[in-house]
């Protein structure tokens, strides 16, 4: 056990836990941020994606000790932002959400991508979302949605 201090969804947070605990379990079970999903549990599907210091990571394979001193943003906090609103509208308009299980991860991946590259090409969007699996949409609608959000939200990223 160790005392781990980090910033969780813009709140200074301290937790007594094992440093090797999975960040995913802590987010879901200790803080009830259940928008963070567990899909594969081995870093391949991206359903558990969160932002660590603004960059996408898979919380199922991040040991809790590693978030010491860092900022973690889950979909719950991100969904309060204007950028999320633009992404949400674009996803809805393009039919990019079906069952919705991958969607929190897709939105986090989109945010991480647009933070680094506000005007991505189709190819860059594919690379940005390459760690996120969706079994419903066939991806084309998601790619279109990110492209449309980049256009509509020009200046926000």
């Amino acid at each position: 056990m160790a005392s781990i201090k980090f910033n969780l969804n813009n709140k200074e947070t301290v937790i007594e836990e094992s440093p090797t605990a999975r960040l995913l379990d802590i987010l879901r079970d200790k803080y009830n941020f259940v928008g963070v999903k567990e899909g594969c549990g081995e870093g391949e599907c991206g359903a558990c994606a969160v932002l660590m210091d603004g960059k996408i990571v898979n919380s199922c394979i991040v040991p809790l000790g590693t978030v010491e001193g860092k900022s973690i943003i889950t979909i719950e906090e991100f969904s309060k932002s204007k950028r999320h609103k633009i992404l949400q509208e674009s996803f809805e308009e393009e039919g990019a959400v079906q069952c919705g299980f991958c969607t929190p991860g897709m939105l986090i991946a989109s945010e991480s991508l647009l933070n680094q590259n506000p005007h991505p090409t189709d190819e860059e969007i594919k690379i940005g979302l390459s760690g996120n699996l969706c079994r419903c949409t066939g991806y084309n609608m998601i790619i279109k949605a990110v492209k449309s959000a980049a256009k509509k939200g020009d200046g926000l990223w």
Partner: protein
Amino acid sequence: MKNLIPKTYLETLELLSSGDYRLLAGGTDLMIQRRSWSNMLPKFRKSTLLIFNLQEMKYMFEEDDFLHIGAGTSLEDIKDNDLTPELLVEAINIMASPAIRNMATLGGNIGNASPAGDSLPVLYVLNALIVLESIEAIREVPISDFIVGPGRKSIKSNEIIKEIRIPIKQFTQTKFEKVGGRKADAISKISFAGAVEINNNIIQDFRVSFGAVGPTVVRKKSLENEIIGQTLAEAKLDVENILKSYEPFITPINDQRSNKEYRKEVALNILESFILTL
């Protein structure tokens, strides 16, 4: 069992010299290898030291004709750094996914010592040196001596992979190839790295290596030396013999990702195409 988060690099060396610890950097391999059920702790057999946050291990600079890369630098940061050789950028571009590359470290890919580690064929071809440090000593070894088998490397329990040193050199042509089930998040069935220097149509330097076709990355300097000095035309005419000379050293296995016949044939096809397109 203790799981500790050292605050400094020096503290890490001290802990390593006083106890038996497993080093845990980004965790992108180890957290999966030691995975348990949901909401259960991963099953580490040893105490761990969590070193991902040691800023002292994240750096890149050029000095004395070498590129120095701190072992804790993430693959994504290495990919985006202007100092990184194009061949290494090519390999990292098709490793895993952005989320994993943000956590995965170059030292970790080497320490994991998987025959399918995608940075490894590149580091073999670039003659990379691995810098190992303990509280008592620091030494450097060529990567080909450091990795001795799948997951096995020549490192003492009190040592840490501190740095990767890559000699700075311009090549005429370099190539990284990877064969996997899909573009992202795929473990290689076969990987290949090649680098050549050609001057006035004469091959001045020729280096190739293969991943996932044997217990360690395969690079044969004796065979390379036979090609060095030939003209491009001679090497291309002789390609069948070159392939034959490499054939006995390509010794892949069957596993869930591929089979040995496919791996061998494709590895040699990639070599052929590399030579014919020089």
